């Protein structure tokens, strides 16, 4: 029996912090080439889930496989990265004391070894690629500025640019639209949509429902609640799911 390969498959994952159960019996599958959006209220375990995939924290129980072949729970962050899993953090995490250009150089795909790094010089293809990315993320004019001096939205873009430079197979994108203008948000959505395909699979965590609608377009959306999957399905279906309304939108409404 042949089935499509899973880019990520998580089964029976549990994780708790000092008694707080952040992830509970989580089971999650995602196909190669998919663009998946994960939504959920605060504390639903979204970011922890990304931490688990990228090796930042280790699960108490359960397994997380990449391409059905690599057990991510046994690998360290940089090994997971080298498999082709890139991550954009919730708060923009760039090298503040490096220039924009240097940030991209550091993220460019290629060897990560200590000794190679001593003698590696950018070749013309790589230089062109950085130029391209700078154009894409609209930071060409700022390439020699320190990343720490950028505005919040620009940092978000830079981080996305770093993901692009990495040319990852799986992109984990945590709230990319936060702090962006509507126009920028739309542009980000377009960029993500254009990337999704056989070469890249994308997992987006988002709060902004407009943005979710824009990028999901009938694709599967996963709702997390209290550390496990509440329901999955197209965005309209999910939005009308009673359980979802109760735990998520209901809360949101109350909070507002």
């Amino acid at each position, binding site marked *: 029996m042949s089935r499509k390969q899973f880019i990520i498959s998580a089964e029976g994952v549990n994780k708790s912090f000092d008694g707080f159960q952040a992830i509970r019996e989580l089971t999650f599958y995602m196909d190669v080439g998919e663009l998946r959006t994960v939504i959920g209220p605060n504390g639903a375990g979204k970011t922890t889930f990304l931490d688990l995939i*990228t090796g*930042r924290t280790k699960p108490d129980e359960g397994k997380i496989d990449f391409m059905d072949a690599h057990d991510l729970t046994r690998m*360290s*962050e*940089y090994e997971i*990265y*080298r498999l082709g899993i*890139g*991550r954009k*953090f919730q708060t923009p*995490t*760039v*090298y*503040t*004391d*490096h220039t924009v250009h*240097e940030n991209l*150089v*550091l*993220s460019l795909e290629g060897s*990560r*070894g*200590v000794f190679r*790094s*001593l*003698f*590696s010089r950018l070749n013309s293809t790589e230089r062109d690629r950085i130029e391209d990315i700078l154009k894409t993320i609209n930071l060409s004019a700022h390439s020699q500025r*320190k990343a*720490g*001096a950028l505005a919040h939205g620009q940092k978000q873009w830079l981080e996305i640019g*770093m993901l692009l430079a*990495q040319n990852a197979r799986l992109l984990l994108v945590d709230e990319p639209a936060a702090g962006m203008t509507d126009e920028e948000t739309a542009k980000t959505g377009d960029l993500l949509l254009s990337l999704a395909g056989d070469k890249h699979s994308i997992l987006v965590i988002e709060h902004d429902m407009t943005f979710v609608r824009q990028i999901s377009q009938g694709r599967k959306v996963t709702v997390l609640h209290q550390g496990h999957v509440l329901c999955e399905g197209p965005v309209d279906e999910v939005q009308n799911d009673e359980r979802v309304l109760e735990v998520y939108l209901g809360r949101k409404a109350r909070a507002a």
Partner: protein
Amino acid sequence: MKSNRNKIELIIVAIAAVILIVLLPALNAAGVVSNFTMSVWGKYLCYAILAISVDLLWGYTGLLSLGQSLFFALGGYMMGMHLMRMIGDLGQYKKPIPDFLVFLGWEQLPAFWVPFSSLVFSMLMVIALPAIVATGFGYLAFRSRIKGVYFSILTQALTYGAALMFFRNDMLLGGNNGFTDFKFLLGADVRAAGTQRGLFIATAIVLIAVYGFCRWLTTTKFGLVQRAVRDSETRVLFSGYAAANYKLFVFVICAIIAGVAGALYVPQVGIINPSEMQTDKSLEIIVWVAVGGRGTLLGPVVGAVVINALKSWATRAYPDLWLLMLGGLFILVVLFMPKGIVGLPAQIRGLLKRKQTPSALATDTAAATP
């Protein structure tokens, strides 16, 4: 503007190189500059090399190691062992083995002392021993992700333990007295002005070379990763770099640099004993770097020279107040001058600018915090 600054720095270094390698020794040979001044400055230069190694670790990689004095002393001990062998039978006991071994009742040289008769082997050990210790300790520490203050505390423990060990007479390394009374190096009288001049020139060359090496290192992609580790180690891991390997590499390189500095230091000051490897000394080196300006390569050199010159003067003029000065200076620098002397002009410019455009504030403070 940046390249402009680089140019200025290069010019300074070139001038310093000429002064240190050619001019001072020539003046000394001509009798204008006294042997005493030369010996004092020779010591400062060794300290400057050591300070660069600390800065490469702390200023560039964010590793505040309290173990650099250990590597410095290890290098010194390796050189010292060779110098002890070179005394031959001119010691107090007129025996072919070092005095303290005679005193401990040894009649023959213990096996591990034998190869140190060779200068080449000793020089090799100057590099190898700090490298081995640094590799072993660094591997363990970085593998288990000990970082920040934990790393500092652990290196402190390592240094403390090593000092306790070297203080023991059973180590057969001279115990508390260490090694002194050196006589010959490469057949020349080690105390002669000419030999000391040669050592001075060697130290100056090594200093310039170490400076050049670090300059080069920090401009490579390695340098980028190195600083990235300092600023956000998590992000580095999520960029696919095995941060531990990078840290280990820098740690070992710095241990070697410190070891070489120690090896140059010992024949010039004429003694090495375990008090050189106490954690206080490590902290003192950190003061030099902090005062000079960390995260630059000129800063540690300036800091090492300024503080030690100040020390030479203050321990003579105000011995009672020296520690108050050192401690007070350190607190001031940490609180108010995060970029040290070298960063002072920029800091003042920044202050002036801030008055005009308050928006520049965010940038500055962000850069000041590691």
